[in-house]
């Protein structure tokens, strides 16, 4: 994927850029808002990572200008610790996701991946399939190997989220946001307990595990090799 990083702090920028390159992304970097706007406007980027606080032109205005110009690049905002209003403002300005600094690299990579493949998911798609697992969004039913699986509503949503990102890592925080709309970090292992119940229903008694734990990052649903 082609990723643009707009971040004024050189150390953070290097950390992000190196991480993305290691993952095989093509990365451009801008150290100021003006430069970032120029690059993003001329662009063809799949994802832009934009820091909220930039010298010259702040991230929020930058993205608003991009959107006004009709640039559809997915935007991931980086916000500072404790900025509780930042998420809503960021999304209203045309951002697609946000991440609070400091963050773990796997968290950022997972989000960039999720954003980059967004257009691939057709809104018309009503049945998600991975290997022998089938999830019907209309009938709200799940079938694996011809056997119906009974899921609680949150478990269904959890599975849907994993299947939409099949083959990619979905982090704990992403799941908290998407499944429960929790935009804070609970000290209780909510995701883990739900995931273990989901696994009990989706994987137990079937040949080949679909849900995998990715150490230090999150979870991934993928067909057995």
């Amino acid at each position, binding site marked *: 994927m082609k990723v643009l990083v707009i971040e004024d702090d050189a150390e953070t920028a290097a950390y992000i850029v190196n991480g993305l390159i290691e993952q095989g992304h093509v990365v451009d970097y801008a150290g100021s808002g003006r430069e970032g706007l120029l690059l993003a406007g001329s662009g063809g980027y799949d994802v832009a990572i934009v820091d909220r606080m930039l010298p010259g032109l702040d991230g929020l205005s930058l993205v608003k200008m991009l959107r006004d110009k009709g640039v559809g690049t997915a935007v991931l905002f980086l916000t500072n610790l404790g900025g509780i209003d930042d998420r809503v403002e960021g999304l209203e300005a045309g951002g697609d996701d946000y991440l609070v600094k400091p963050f773990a690299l796997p968290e950022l990579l997972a989000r960039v991946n999720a954003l980059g493949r967004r257009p691939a998911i057709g809104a018309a798609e009503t049945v998600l399939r991975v290997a022998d697992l089938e999830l019907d969004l209309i009938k709200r039913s799940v079938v694996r190997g011809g056997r119906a699986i009974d899921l609680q509503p949150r478990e269904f949503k959890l599975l849907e989220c994993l299947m939409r990102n099949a083959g990619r890592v979905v982090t704990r925080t992403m799941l908290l946001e998407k499944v429960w709309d929790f935009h*804070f970090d609970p000290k209780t292992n909510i995701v883990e307990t739900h995931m273990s119940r989901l696994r009990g229903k989706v994987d137990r008694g079937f040949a080949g595990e679909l849900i995998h734990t990715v150490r230090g990052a999150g979870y991934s649903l993928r067909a057995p090799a």
Partner: protein
Amino acid sequence: MRLPRIIRTATFRLAALYVLLFASSVAVLGVIVYLTTAAALDRRLDARIAGEMATLKSAFEKGGLVRLEQEVRIHQRTRPAGPLDYLVFEPGGARLAGDLPIMPGQLGWSNVDHKESDGDISHRRVLTAAFGSGVRLAVAADREQIDELEEAIFNGFASAFAAVIALGSIGGIALSLVLLNRVDSIRRTAEAIIAGDLSQRVPVRGTNDDFDRLSRTLNRMLDRITELMESLRQVSTDIAHDLKTPLARLRQRLETAQKQSQSDDGHNAAIESAIGQVDEILGIFGALLRIAQIEAGTRRSGFRELDLSAVFANVIDAFAPAAEDAGKRLDAKIKPAIRFVGDRELLTQMLANLIENAIRHTPDGTRIEVSLGSDRDHIIGIVSDNGPGTPAEERERIFQRFYRLEHSRSTPGSGLGLSLVKAVADLHGIALDVRDAEPGLQIVMRFPTGDIEGETAGERSSHSAKVPERQDVVT
């Protein structure tokens, strides 16, 4: 020297201005009284002289010069019209009768000064008339009495003027001194506080006057500031203390890792635990910043009408499996479709923190109950457990930053979860009640209903347009 300072005070300047105005009015009054009195006295004197002249003239007309001289002598003896002097003379200057010591020059009214034998100068008002061709009569009155009266009036007012100036100045200085003293005592207190002694208070006299009331208000303000400073100091101490522990632990682990682990696995484990430690510290910072931001109140602009029941159901749904895995039971009684105006994200976190608190600080087998109900006038949410509870004297303190019961010091947690609950509740006007669930702890949330513009109208007016009417809130 104290005096120049007094002159510069506002009170003294006001007093001086007042004295000046008052003295001027006394002076104007004096001039008016003097002039009108003098004019009236002069008119009376002239009338007396003219009357006498008329009487004598009629005597002359009846009996000629002889009769006139006779009459003048009688009048001089008896002086029926007051202390008047007369002179009958010829135009040539021959005195025929009368004792007026001067010789009037012209006919009609004149004022004549004359040096008396005793050396005093007398002022006389003289009326001279010609009777026929050869005889003239002058009637004169001494102005001494009038002059004395006028002088008395002038002196009286001059003394009054001087007294007004003198007393006014003394009063002004005294008033200024008194006020300057009161103001100075306030100023001295303020200076002492600026110098660092926040325990100083403005003295109150007990007279309940303006200054006392001002002093009391200032003292209350100072009390409040002291209180806030104290809590700020407490918080910074607590922050330092609570961050010191994980930082010290982090340092120990890094040191141990440096000394011992030679293997990659060992290094990785050490680094992982160090990252975990740093995350914990960052978590504390994040929570503090979040609480501070919520307390700042700007978040209210994001208030929307929402389904409170759905918020509760979502949080309970999220925590039920975790509670079960922790050996506890999470039961819920949620009345559906209760509407409320607020911030979904913050309300979610508030309830999550309350439930988390109940899960974390109770033993295995505890039953945690969450309920949400409403009637026409109330929305009440309750989170309760049948665990060990909190001692009565500690109950009010559980919402303080970094507050943790002694026995929970050993369990992980920042002691900030319930502070955030309080901050969110305050933002929404939710009253929190901590009770004994006998046994266990019960936290009651009373959500504001009815007129949203009511008790916090001032603070909310900025976004009142977004707040729906009451009947829409409670359905």
